[in-house]
């Protein structure tokens, strides 16, 4: 019998927590299942996986995953995860949320987390509607779609999350669909393995308030699921990625953009390393005494 025990592989069963409070057939169930699949496959240490979310239906995600988790306030999941990721580079940080949380109330943070290239993976479950508050217009609701806040149909131009992401400086940008599990698995896995800020825009149907919103990308419902041809699409070409974002009805699915750039985690750590090397052999108290000496 070997003395060194094989590290126990994380199982789906161990990753499951509370039964989701989502409505029956909500697209988010598939996202959760896909997350379990990928985390299990990648064999992370159980205690090092962390799920972070803000507020919304999809932001309930951390309660349904048996890992360390934090359910924060509306729109601020990304900055919280930034503090977590920068101060604990040993962790696998995942952020989950919806279109309202990420593109509206928390919209500013998306740009900054992306440009700073914070090492984490962000999954946006975009359903084009505010579901938890029961059917108001969201930042991605198409023009003309009726809701409780737009009884005559939405009149504001929706944001284009993909072109925003491309211009934000994110280093891995993908788009997938919760009804296409295999594709979703692949996108999540590639996003997680990417070093830096990776984001996956995931169309996830709200069966309660916006049923059929994404049928145009489901072949058995008469739609087309068009994949990006990675043989011809240059993933490092920003202009090519931006061109792909121009038509999202239903548009293309796959990796729009992917590049390598120093993460803020690495850049900050390098500073810490240099500063500590310059003070090697000194205790914290010694360093503080040096500061005092300058004030004499």
């Amino acid at each position, binding site marked *: 019998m070997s003395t060194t025990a094989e590290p126990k592989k994380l199982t789906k069963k161990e990753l499951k927590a509370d039964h989701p409070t989502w409505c029956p057939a909500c697209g988010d169930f598939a996202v959760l299942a896909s997350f379990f699949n990928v985390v299990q496959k990648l064999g992370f240490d159980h205690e090092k996986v962390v799920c972070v979310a803000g507020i919304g239906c999809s932001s309930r995600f951390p309660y349904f995953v048996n890992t360390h988790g934090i359910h924060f306030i509306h729109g*601020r999941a990304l900055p919280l995860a930034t503090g977590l990721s920068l*101060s604990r580079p040993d962790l696998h940080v995942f952020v989950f949320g919806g279109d309202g949380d990420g593109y509206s109330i928390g919209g500013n943070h998306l740009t900054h987390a992306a440009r700073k290239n914070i090492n984490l993976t962000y999954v946006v479950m975009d359903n084009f509607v505010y579901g938890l508050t029961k059917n108001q217009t969201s930042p991605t609701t198409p023009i003309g779609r009726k809701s409780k806040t737009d009884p005559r149909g939405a009149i504001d131009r929706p944001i284009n999350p993909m072109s925003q992401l491309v211009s934000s400086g994110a280093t891995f940008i993908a788009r997938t669909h919760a009804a296409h599990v295999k594709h979703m698995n692949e996108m999540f896995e590639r996003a997680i393995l990417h070093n830096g800020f990776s984001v996956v825009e995931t169309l996830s149907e709200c069966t309660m308030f916006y049923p059929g919103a994404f049928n145009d990308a489901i072949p058995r419902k008469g739609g087309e699921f068009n994949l990006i041809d990675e043989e011809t699409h240059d993933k490092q070409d920003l202009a090519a990625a931006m061109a792909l974002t121009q038509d999202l009805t239903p548009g293309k699915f796959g990796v729009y953009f992917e590049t390598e750039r120093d993460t803020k985690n690495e850049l*900050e750590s390098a500073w810490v390393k240099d500063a500590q090397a310059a003070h090697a052999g000194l205790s914290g*108290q010694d360093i503080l005494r040096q500061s005092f000496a300058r004030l004499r």
Partner: protein
Amino acid sequence: MSATATPTSIRNAVIRLAGHSQDGIQSIGAFLAQLAGSTAQDVMTYMTIPSTISGGPSIFQVHLGSGEVLHPGDESDTLVAFYQDSYDNHLSAVKDGGICFYDSDKVEEIREERGIIHIGVPFTTATIEAIGGNAKSRGKNIFVLGMLCAVYKLDRDKISDIIAAKFGKKSEDVLRNAMLAFDAGYLWPVHDINHMPMAPGENDLGQDRLSTDGNTMLGLGLIAGGCRFGAGYPITPWSTIMEQLRSELPKYGGMFIQTEDELAAVALAIGASFAGHLAITGSSGPGLSLKSEAMGYACMAELPLIVVNIQRGGPSTGMPTSVEQSDLMQAIYGSHGDAPRVVLAPRDVEDCFYTALEACRIAKEYSTLVVILSDQAIASRIEAFPEPDLEKNWIEPVLDLSERPEDFKPYPLDGLTRHSPPGAKSASGKYPVVTGLEHDEWGHPSGSPKMHEQMSAKRREKLIQLAGTYGAPEIYGEESGDLLIVGWGSTYGPIREAVDRLCSEGHKVSQLSIRHIHPLNPNLDEVFSRFTHILVPEINDPGIYGFGQLATMLRAKTCNPAIQSLNKIQGLTFRVKEIVTKAEEVLAGK
């Protein structure tokens, strides 16, 4: 100069330097303060800066003393006026028979009044002559420093060392010019006044004394308290703390991040706190408002967090570079729902260090939000005080990633919250979710009325437990008497000086300085009952009901009708005589 006549030495000197913000008058003040700190003299400075980037009127007042200095000085003994507007606006601040040095190149209209001795010195041309070339206005601050050094017979060698330490780093030319300007000022004939040698300092800890401002000591106190991660957004007068921590924390293996906004700053800090570190964010006025929602989250989730608020003047953008104590209620109650937290207030520069350290200890021990309420006056003024002993004042940060036992509960109803940070294993195989929803002991969301009642009690009771550890309030002066003057924050010095003056006039007056703003010391009721009158001076508005913010809290806490307010709402600190006058009225039963 003759050495024959030795004028009587003086024990106190209040020097007001009035110029514009780009003239470097802050550096003269800082040099004088540093000199005082290293020569066993005491010092307190006071400055105003315009909220514009450059060119606005600015003053820097230095109060030097052989003994203890408690306030920056009501009136100036000496005014140094760089421009006509400096002269016009500040001559009234000079005491009768005081001295006014003015730049005779810039100040043209002189009003001889109240026996003030006027001495015109061409700061501008004399500096250009000394340095040579086209130096414009640069260096005249150092010229003035040299002149003051001669007038007050300050230690020329020490101040030369301080100048060398400051400018020597830049380049030899810069240092040479500074010394030329200094010597020209030192040797400028100011024959028509008696020189006023400062008496030697009496502080026995002269060698180990530091002289610096409150924000610097607050930042260093956070480091000593074990804060290793922070995030912030620039805003006056908080910014210097974030600048300092950004540079200093990497040396200790930590980091400070500048964020896109205040909301992100507090969220990053909470993220680091969730990660198991002691984290800090901070701001001033408007920034505190923006952080309020997330601060409530920290209370609900019971995460340790430090939020520094350097109070400034007015609501909204208000008076960004003025002082006020009007954020007390917001610090205590400024989140929706019942979100109890700890609020501490330092009373002087030295206390900024110890308050920050105490905030760190409390935040960790009680797993709570602690707000540090400093103010613009403490943040920017310079004082001299003994160096803190780090053997006794140091908390080594610990990241506890030990495995949590089978029965681990993050929110036990019968104990203090101890979170399990990511990276810590769970013996039970179940991992906790930290949450802002009302929850049960394991952190599961709960809408149960009983659970909300129990958890609200848990969050409240831990603060009551903390207040039970405070001990008896420290009273300055007699333990009972006719009047107790109660203050908080930067009014400490002026109140103490007022109490000394009133006692010397034969009144029975004592002082209480409240550092624990929330929760208050449970023994206050008993202390107050020993005094006939209680006066609470505050730099805030008396509001609709006639009481300042602390006074309102004290009345709510003690139901003591003897509590009265003295409010000042000019964006300025109290003068000692304002407190004395009001106290005399109270004592006379007016």
